[in-house]
């Protein structure tokens, strides 16, 4: 699954890099320029899928310039008749065949913009979603409901299908642990992790819906809470949660990349994600997983298709038609068979492979303080800390178009403003290294964000960013090598990653770096490079680097502001 693709039911864009207010309300059939752009996007997306490198959407793929009809007709602003603009959880990409049928039956098509929970909630609560989208379709509205500002903005929340959080184990792992799938509990997982016998991958709760649901499941399971989590439960479960998260050896900003990264890694024993995602991975032969729903309870996503009250009447009517269709027996059958989500219509049997035995539903927190407190604890206390190296091109060409200014402001955003929400700044305990380069590495600037007192390190990083100046050539590969050498042997308790930002073609050769990388021990090879396309950087070159290291390519060539978007999105992978 790719984060960006053009599909039969419309153009998909990425929330993090596509400003909500961007008017790109057009399908590929309108205007030849748009058609070309769409084709290009399709090709890029296809290439991305083929190479398992996931492209972040570019503004070039999402805003097709001024929207005009085929014959230069009137401007099609905002809602376009029959095409519902939907802000959605990215795992819904697998609904494509169902939505294609829905279009045939109802004439309503869907244009998705992918978004993580918190980002979507922010857009709805702040009003940015008004006028930009007609509906939201997240795995759950539970978190959104905790925001009073969102209350007036939603109507007709209609659950369409369901999927619980589950754990996918390598069959060999279950055998090694001597576990029967139906008897696995969160407590047992915690115990195995704390004995060093189990590791797993999970998405970032701040950016991904499945990660958030998993966090709530685990916290409920390990706190022993008999009812909805309270602040006291979270606090009390802290030590056990911290132990639990020592087993998390893989993190990701999206379910799609998590699956890809898991397939590359043989040192990760299990994945925590929605049952539907895990079963689909097995079907698609990417990984063989035994999928279990922990016996002590799960959090289930119900995917409520929810209309925004700000949507035009025509859009709301389209939304009603679409939901009515999706809740029908035919669509429900297709949904469960194609996506392994569970049907919500009576009389429709769940797809083969979906266990019928019941699980306790762990309540989602009923207050924002508990939900946000849990996320903040995860970020700053519970999860393993991050060691992050930013390999930054500060060659002479960075003076063009104020690229250096845009780099500075993008990095400064990551140092937070005091009001930055959870996950928007460098985390407590994070070791941040700036490695600016030109013809060679210019400096290696390292700071560690002190828990409870992040100010000094963040100030120091800000100062270092301010001192960056454009000069010299573009020694990408030598600088990357220096980054790996700086990280050295992973201390074992941190997520290590390298962010590479360059605005041009490298001046040195890949070959030496490739041989260097080949000699690294496995543990060091696992440090992924997240490369950012910017200015005139060479897509092919950067793609090769991300493929070699198991990273991912992010595109910030779309215009001002998107470099910040890419850096922000990469936080989910660090």
């Amino acid at each position, binding site marked *: 699954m790719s984060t960006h693709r053009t599909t039969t039911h419309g153009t998909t864009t990425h929330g993090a890099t596509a400003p909500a207010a961007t008017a790109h309300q057009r399908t590929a059939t309108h205007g030849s320029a748009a058609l070309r752009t769409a084709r290009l996007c399709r090709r890029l997306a296809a290439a991305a899928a083929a190479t398992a490198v996931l492209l972040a959407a570019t503004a070039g793929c999402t805003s097709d310039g001024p929207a005009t009809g085929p014959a230069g007709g009137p401007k099609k602003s905002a809602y376009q008749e029959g095409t519902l603009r939907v802000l959605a959880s990215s795992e819904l990409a697998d609904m494509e065949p169902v939505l294609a049928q829905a279009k045939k039956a109802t004439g309503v098509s869907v244009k998705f913009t992918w978004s993580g929970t918190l980002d979507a909630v922010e857009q709805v609560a702040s009003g940015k979603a008004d006028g930009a989208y007609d509906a939201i379709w997240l795995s759950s509205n539970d978190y959104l409901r905790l925001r009073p500002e969102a209350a007036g903005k939603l109507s007709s929340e209609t*659950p369409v299908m369901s999927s619980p959080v589950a754990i996918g184990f390598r069959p060999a792992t279950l055998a090694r642990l001597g576990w029967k799938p139906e008897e696995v509990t969160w407590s047992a997982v915690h115990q195995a992790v704390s004995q060093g016998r189990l590791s797993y991958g999970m998405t970032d709760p701040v950016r991904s819906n499945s990660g958030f649901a998993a966090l709530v499941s685990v916290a409920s399971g390990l706190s022993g809470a008999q009812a909805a989590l309270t602040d006291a439960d979270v606090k009390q479960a802290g030590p056990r949660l911290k132990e639990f998260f020592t087993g998390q050896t893989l993190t990701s900003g999206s379910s799609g990349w998590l699956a890809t990264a898991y397939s590359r890694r043989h040192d990760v024993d299990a994945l925590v994600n929605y049952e539907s995602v895990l079963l689909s991975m097995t079907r698609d032969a990417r990984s063989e997983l035994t999928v279990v729903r922990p016996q002590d309870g799960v959090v289930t996503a119900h995917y*409520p298709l929810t209309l925004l009250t700000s949507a035009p009447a025509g859009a709301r009517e389209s939304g009603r038609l679409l939901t009515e269709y999706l809740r029908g027996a035919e669509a429900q059958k297709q949904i469960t068979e194609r996506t392994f989500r569970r049907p919500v219509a009576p009389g429709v049997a769940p797809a083969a492979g979906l266990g019928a035995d019941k699980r306790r539903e762990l309540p989602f927190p009923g207050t924002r303080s508990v939900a946000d407190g849990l996320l903040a604890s995860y970020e700053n206390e519970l999860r393993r800390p991050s060691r992050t190296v930013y390999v930054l091109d500060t060659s002479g060409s960075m003076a063009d178009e104020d690229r250096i200014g845009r780099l500075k402001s993008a990095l400064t955003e990551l140092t937070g403003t005091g009001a930055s929400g959870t996950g928007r700044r460098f985390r407590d305990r994070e070791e941040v290294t700036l490695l600016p380069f030109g013809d060679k590495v210019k400096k290696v600037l390292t700071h560690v964000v002190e828990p409870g007192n992040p100010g000094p390190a963040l100030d120091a990083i800000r100062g270092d960013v301010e001192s960056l100046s454009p000069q010299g050539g573009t020694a990408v590969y030598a600088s990357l090598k220096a980054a790996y050498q700086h990280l050295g042997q992973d201390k074992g308790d941190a997520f290590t990653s390298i962010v590479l930002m360059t605005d041009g073609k490298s001046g040195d050769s890949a070959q030496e770096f490739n041989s260097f990388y080949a000699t690294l021990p496995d543990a060091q090879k696992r440090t992924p490079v997240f490369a950012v396309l910017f200015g005139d950087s060479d897509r092919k070159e950067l793609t090769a680097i991300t493929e070699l290291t198991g990273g991912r390519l992010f595109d910030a060539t779309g215009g001002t502001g998107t470099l910040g978007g890419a850096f922000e999105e990469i936080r989910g992978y660090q």
Partner: protein
Amino acid sequence: MGFREHAAPVRRIFGIALAVLLIGGVIAVILIGNKEPGGTATKTVRGVIGSEKAEFFDDPDVVKALAAKGYTVRTETSGSWAMDQLPLKEYDFAFPSSSEPAVEIEAKAGLKGAQTVKPFYSPLVVVARANAAKVLADNGLARLTGKNTGTLLMGPYLKASGEDRTWQQLQGSAAYAELTGTVFIKTTDPTSSNSGALFLAATSNVHNNSTVVSDEAGIERTAPLLRKLISVQGSLPPSTDDPFRAFISGAGDPLILVYESQVASMLLQKQDPGDMAVLYPDTTVNTEHTFVPLSETARELGALLTGDPKLRELAIRHGFRPRDGLAEFTKATEPHSAFLNQKLTGIRQVNTPNVKILMTLAQRAKG
């Protein structure tokens, strides 16, 4: 008589709630009547209804039956407790899920002696899986009259809630992995949704020595228990559709508060209920769907919904109990008597506190 003044802050809360539940969109009803050759022209009336009646008004047979009587009905849905915040001049009628909000709507619309009618009603029920119902019954919290139906004994149930009883503490639960954690009934958000609010109306009555809570003392007496009933649930859904669908999908909580009409509609449409058990709380508040004509155009519509045999039959198809229609309802649901307590035998019906008190209770319960 400062009721409305005192109620102002509460009304603002309603305002928020309104927006949550409002479907602003007109649910266009197909103009079948107009298309029939030789058919008489219909007059279009616009109404705001509780969402549980949306399927009824969407039903092509209902559209046809109304058209035959000269009506094209266009509806929007809203939380019943928020309808009086709508620009009522834009509607020809309002059709909330219970009679209390109807009074508010009349007052707001400046109507005196509006000809409100109550075409049908539906009691609140708790759906459970058969094993959960049996565990409740074996522990004295419910009484089963068959495998799939029975009565929820509110006194013992509330006592257990007050003591934070868990499923693990109930005998016979160990066989079922899903029966763990605090015993609670999943409700909707009582500050915005009718069923959640009426659940508090019923439970507060039981806990207030079988008396309607009507004063500060009653609020203080009942609020701590109501808070337990609501706050343990965590996130609260906006409508009964959400937990009911979760139940159908095999996930979800063991005990869910819904309208009897949701269950009956499913049964009457011959959809498989699985191993569902329907528990009728022994103390309940009926939801009397109350038709409030706001303009002259809709004045006769309420009477039509109440009296027209075809429309009564169609209301039953959607699980509602027509006014004075016990015999019709009983006959139609005869094949499903294993699930339904058709005659509501042994069920005590109580009145609701006034709106202000009920919403105070809802706020206190949410905490």
